[in-house]
């Protein structure tokens, strides 16, 4: 019983979402879905585990905040104390805007960088899937570990306009 990786190509977000839900109900192993825009409800249909990216974001934000505050305090209290407008050296309100901006910067840029590194999406990565239209107007659903004929029939039944085999499996 041969099992390979197949890609179902769909014309609309509704069709691919319906197919993904049906596949999930049947207990098929959905590897991934590729859509030109985020499809609402797809994360549930794929039963993706909650992302840990939000925690990374929190940790990055907290380190940005710590860095910004400690650096500013270090400069204005120890390294180069300056009298600005008669304010005390530890003028906390003046440090808040910079602390806020650095927090947002580190959290924002850091989260995107984390995503790119951990999902292996850095520039130069070879595109594993070459179905035309995946970034344009086609919606792809990748399923494996299902007997070939059954999978092909399943895709057709759910309105796939094309079914492709991924040689050597995805990845």
């Amino acid at each position, binding site marked *: 019983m041969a099992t390979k990786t197949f890609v179902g190509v769909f014309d609309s977000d509704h069709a691919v979402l319906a197919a993904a839900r049906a596949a999930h109900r049947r207990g098929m192993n959905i590897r991934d879905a590729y859509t030109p825009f985020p499809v*609402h409800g797809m994360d549930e249909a794929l039963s993706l585990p909650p992302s840990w990216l939000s925690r990374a974001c929190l940790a990055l934000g907290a380190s940005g905040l710590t860095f910004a505050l400690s650096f500013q305090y270090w400069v204005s209290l120890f390294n180069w104390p300056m009298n600005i407008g*008669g304010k005390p050296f530890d003028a906390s309100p*003046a440090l*808040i*805007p910079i602390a806020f901006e650095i927090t947002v910067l580190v959290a924002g840029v850091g989260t995107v960088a984390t995503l790119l590194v951990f999902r292996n999406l850095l520039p130069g990565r070879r595109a594993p899937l070459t179905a035309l239209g995946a970034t344009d107007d086609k919606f792809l659903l990748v399923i494996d570990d299902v007997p070939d004929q059954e999978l092909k029939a399943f895709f057709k039944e759910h309105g796939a306009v094309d079914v492709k085999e991924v040689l050597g499996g995805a990845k």
Partner: protein
Amino acid sequence: MTRRSLLDPQARSVCTVLAVLGAAAFLIGLKLAPQRALAGFLLGNTYFLMLAVTALVFIAIQNLVGAGWPVLFRRVPEAMTAYLPAGALGMLVLLLGSHSLYHWAHHAAAVHDQILHAKAGYLNLPFWAVRAAAILSLWMAFARAIIKNSRRQDVDGSVAHTHKNKRLSAAFMVVFGVTFTLASIDWIMSLEPHWYSTMFPWYMFGGAFVHVLATIALLTVLLHRRGLFAEFNEHHRHDLGKYVFGFGVFWAYLWFCQFLLIWYANIPEETAYYVLRSSRGWMAVQMLSLTANFLLPSALLIRILSKKDDKTLIAACVSVCLGRGLDLYVMIMPSISGAARLHWLDLPIFLGLAGVFVLLFDRAFASAPAVPEKDPYLVESLHHHG
């Protein structure tokens, strides 16, 4: 179609008793401590009046951007605007008591005070009353028109009402921007007539908007628990939670902005406001307000799962509603009494107005179907999905 009131007779009588006790406390207070009684009344009335008008802002924003998801519970903010006429009546009471409340309203004050003399062209009682009348009639007219269209759609199901409301909402947002700015300057900022802050109306809006979002979320979740809005699901809660979280941060941003600019420039006539509000116990109230409006709700709602959980959402919203009261307390009361001390009049008057608000809300909510059944966007709201 009229449904039964949501309040059981017991709750209704509690509200009525609160309203009557509040009125009694206010009347006794007018004899014993008129300034404090009026300040307490100003606080409570502003709290609910701004809640009512920003409820209309919420509706207008959703109409303008064509948002489908909140249509299911749109009747909640619609019913919240029912306090507008009562609030207008409250402003009339404050006009009658303005001599005890607003220092600039004294003729003698403007004669001997150079700053007040220079401001007298704007800060005088007749002009103040005309502005208040214009502001309140505009708010009531827009609320009436927008809600009337929404209810007519229940009958004939015509899409024309949606289009009409879109145009009305656009006009209202412009009108609101001007009128709300004037209202916050006239009613609250002028309590300190020597002081001014160009951030003040923004800050006021930040507070009012996070408050209205929290109240809408709170009422909707509570009504859902009582069996209404069967299709209300975790995605609605998630979106409401995001709204409350985001605008809590927005409020804190404005709260701090106003302070930072004044602290930095360090000009005596501007800092006087904060000098008073960071001494004699007021600092503690400020910190409590910051915690209730921003720190606690943000910490509670930061996770996706907690935004979707109705208990956490309720806790965060209650915190914001209390925080809004503290926020207004810090704006109003230091101008009236030097030290931060709860007066026996403060709570009864506030609770009395709360009773009035709940009764008016309940009556307005019961006077129309709970869900705008024929709204073209309703389908989207029923299947709301992340």
